[in-house]
């Protein structure tokens, strides 16, 4: 990534005033990045940005409250930071935001499917819209357009919306705004009974690992999550579709008007359940009803935490 050096310099300058800077570095193999906590100067050298930086680091922020934290964000991550600020879950003076223009991140599931059982990954490079992966002695060339995450094809905010230090030049979104909900529209063309069957089939695969919840930057209840609550007892410990589906709806509903569509739930899901679809639907309706998008304006109030005496888009029920 071309702005990497610039970013490192800017972090180096800011680090003395910060307790920790959260970024990415190379993970257990060259194909995977991992969150990287920079506390000392020498940690900065291991920082890496690029299409492998899939994690939304804003998830760590509520847990680091009270500390001076620097965070490196992509466009979508910056919306999560803004949403956290909107809800007073973090303090603006405690976070220093480093932004860079993001050209999309890979979807490791797509990469895994394309590579098959390729063996140990020896190297991984990004060159001119291609991801070159050396695995098991052979070189695999994957076109980025084939392996980028779905959310990146409908991304409206490639640049950090809020940043104290922005490296590189801002880029414009590659798709028109209307195109973002094409996949949802396709799903909504399905008959109702097929949709019902679809969710049953998908939720049946869920292993209740709660990775979706733990990866979500907006799931801040931690030990007080409804999923573990015994009073009220919303969910049983049984392994059945009803409870698994119900949990996803609790998640979707607790994110209504707050979800920034970073896609962490779907990325973290080991069973590849299309969880983002539920959240996209919720966001689409909220956008239509209240002309509101989460995580865009730090001063805005989430729509379900406020009301108007006369709602423009809600018709009074005629019966």
């Amino acid at each position, binding site marked *: 990534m071309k702005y990497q050096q610039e970013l490192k310099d800017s972090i180096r300058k800011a680090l003395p005033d910060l307790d920790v800077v959260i970024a990415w570095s190379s993970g257990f193999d060259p194909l995977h990045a991992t969150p990287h906590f920079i506390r000392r100067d020498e940690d900065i050298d291991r920082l890496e940005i690029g299409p492998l930086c899939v994690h939304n680091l804003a998830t760590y922020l509520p847990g680091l409250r009270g500390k001076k934290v620097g965070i490196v964000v992509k466009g979508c991550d910056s919306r999560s930071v803004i949403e956290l600020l909107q809800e007073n879950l973090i303090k603006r003076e405690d976070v220093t935001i480093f932004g860079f223009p993001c050209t999309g991140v890979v979807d490791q599931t797509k990469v895994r499917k394309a590579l098959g059982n390729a063996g140990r990954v020896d190297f991984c490079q990004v060159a001119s819209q291609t991801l070159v992966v050396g695995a098991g002695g052979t070189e695999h060339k994957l076109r980025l357009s084939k392996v980028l995450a779905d959310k990146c094809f409908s991304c409206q905010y490639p640049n950090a919306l809020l940043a104290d230090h922005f490296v590189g030049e801002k880029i414009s979104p590659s798709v028109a705004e209307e195109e973002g909900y094409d996949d949802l529209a396709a799903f909504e063309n399905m008959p109702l009974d097929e949709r*019902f069957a679809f969710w049953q089939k998908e939720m049946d695969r869920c292993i209740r690992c709660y990775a979706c919840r733990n990866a979500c930057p907006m799931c801040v209840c931690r030990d007080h999550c409804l999923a573990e609550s015994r009073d009220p007892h919303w969910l049983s410990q049984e392994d059945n579709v009803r409870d698994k589906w119900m949990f996803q709806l609790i998640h979707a509903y607790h994110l209504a008007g707050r979800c920034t569509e970073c896609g962490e739930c779907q990325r973290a899901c080991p069973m590849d359940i299309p969880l983002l679809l539920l959240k996209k639907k919720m966001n689409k309706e909220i956008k239509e009803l*209240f002309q509101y998008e989460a995580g865009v304006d730090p001063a805005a109030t989430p729509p*379900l935490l406020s009301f108007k005496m006369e*709602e423009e888009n809600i018709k009074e029920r005629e019966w």
Partner: protein
Amino acid sequence: MPVLKGKELRIVGFLCNWCSYGGADTAGVGRFTQPTDLRIIRVPCSGRIDPLFIIKTLMNGADGVLVSGCHPRDCHYAEGNFYARRRLEVLHRFLPILGFEPGRFEYTWVSASEGQRWQQVVTRFTEQIHKLGPAPKIAGPEASKTLRQMEAAL
């Protein structure tokens, strides 16, 4: 009206204590004829209703859910139903993605004096649910559990 086995569907109503519950009472005192499919749950305010109550009700096998509260601007707690209106409208638009017909859930406003109106609301909603028929049920091992729960509710 007697309970007609097999002909009734399970409809759950969440009613605000201050208006609609009173309205249902008025309808009863006035001896207005009403269908008997509805099971009423009294809540302190329509703002008390978590949209997840409604989702959970549908997941547990109810065929329809009706929410009724005070008319906007008439809330006993001044603004509870304004919040409720936003939440319930979002839910109303969200449910079809799960495979539930939009008509399975409706929300409306009935005041304590509107016994006649309550009768109309219940009759119309029950007719609507009967037209839709039984709601889709989760298949698989838990189907029998759903059936037990539904039988208990009738």
